[in-house]
C-alpha cells in the first residue's frame, strides 16, 4: 500500500502589510502546489496587498518550478496582491539564465528589506493590516463596500469645496 508522505506545510506570516513566504526547503511539485494554494487562500481571506516569496533556502529551481512560482504571482495579482521574489541564489540564477527562463514579469528584490520597500506603495495601511492579522476570517463583503463608498463620497465633497473656494477668489 502506498502511503502519501506527509508534506510539510510552509509557515507564512504577515508583517509590514505583506504576506511573507519563506521557503527553506527544496521545492518539489506537490509542495509548490500546496504553497500556491496557501498563498492564494491567505490573500483571498485577508485582502493583503503584498506577497514576498523568499527562496533563499532553495538551491535548485528548474523551469517548471520557476513557472509555478510566476503562476502563483500572476494569480495573486488577479486577487489584488503584488508579488515580489527575494533570495534568488547565484546558482539558481545562473541555471535559470541558462535555461533561458523568463520570470521577468515577476519583480525580484535583492533582499527581504528591499522587497518590503518595493511593496510599500501598494500595501494596506498599518491599521488595516492589524485588523487582518487578528481576523483571519474573511470580512463581510457588504461592510467593505460601504467603507469604500464613504471614502469616495468624502473625497468628492472635499473636491467640491476646493472648487467653491477657488471660485470665490
Amino acid at each position, binding site marked *: 500500500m502506498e502511503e502519501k508522505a506527509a508534506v510539510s506545510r510552509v509557515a507564512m506570516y504577515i508583517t509590514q502589510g505583506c504576506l511573507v513566504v519563506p521557503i527553506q526547503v527544496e521545492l518539489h511539485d506537490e509542495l509548490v502546489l500546496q504553497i500556491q494554494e496557501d498563498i492564494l487562500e491567505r490573500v483571498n481571506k485577508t485582502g493583503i496587498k503584498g506577497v514576498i516569496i523568499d527562496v533563499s533556502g532553495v538551491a535548485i529551481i528548474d523551469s517548471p518550478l520557476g513557472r509555478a512560482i510566476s503562476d502563483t504571482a500572476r494569480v495573486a495579482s488577479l486577487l489584488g496582491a503584488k508579488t515580489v521574489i527575494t533570495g534568488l541564489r547565484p546558482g539558481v540564477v545562473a541555471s535559470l*539564465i541558462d535555461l533561458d527562463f523568463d520570470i521577468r514579469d515577476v519583480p525580484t528584490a535583492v533582499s527581504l528589506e528591499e522587497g518590503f520597500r518595493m511593496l510599500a506603495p501598494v500595501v494596506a495601511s498599518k491599521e488595516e493590516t492589524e485588523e487582518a492579522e487578528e481576523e483571519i476570517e474573511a470580512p463581510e463583503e457588504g461592510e467593505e463596500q460601504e467603507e469604500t463608498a464613504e471614502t469616495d463620497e468624502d473625497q468628492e465633497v472635499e473636491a467640491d469645496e476646493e472648487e467653491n473656494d477657488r471660485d470665490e477668489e
Partner: protein
Amino acid sequence: MTKGMQETKIPIPVLVLWEDILLVTIFGVVDSKRAQELMETALARIWEVQSRIIILDIRAVPSVDTAVANHFIKISQATKLMGCQCIISGLSPAIAQTIAGLEIDLGELQTRASLLEALELALEMTGLEVVAKKKTAAK
C-alpha cells in the same frame, strides 16, 4: 602541460563603491571563460552584500563584438534576476557604435560613457544625491 606549471587566475575584485553600489573594473579580452568567471564572482558578491546596483566598467576592454555584448547582456539579466541593476560604464564612442551596429536589444542593461555618469545614475536610482557642505559665514 607539465606538473610544475601553475595556472595563474587573475582575480576579479568586486568593490563596494557605496552602500548598495558595487563596482567591477574589467581588464582585457572578455572571452566566454572570463565572462563566466565574471558572472559567478559578481553574483556571489551581490548575494553577500545585497547591493541593488552593480557597475561594470569596461574602459580597459579593447573591443566588443556580438559575443562579448551578449556576455554582458547575460550578466545583466542574471544580476537583474537577483534584484540588482547592472550599469555598464566606460563605453568608448567606437564601442558604442559597434553595439548600435549589432542591433541587439540591450534589454535591462543601462550604459554610460564614464564611471562618473554611471555613479550619478546609481546614486539617483538608490535615492541619493551628493550635496556640498555649507560654508560657515565669515565673522
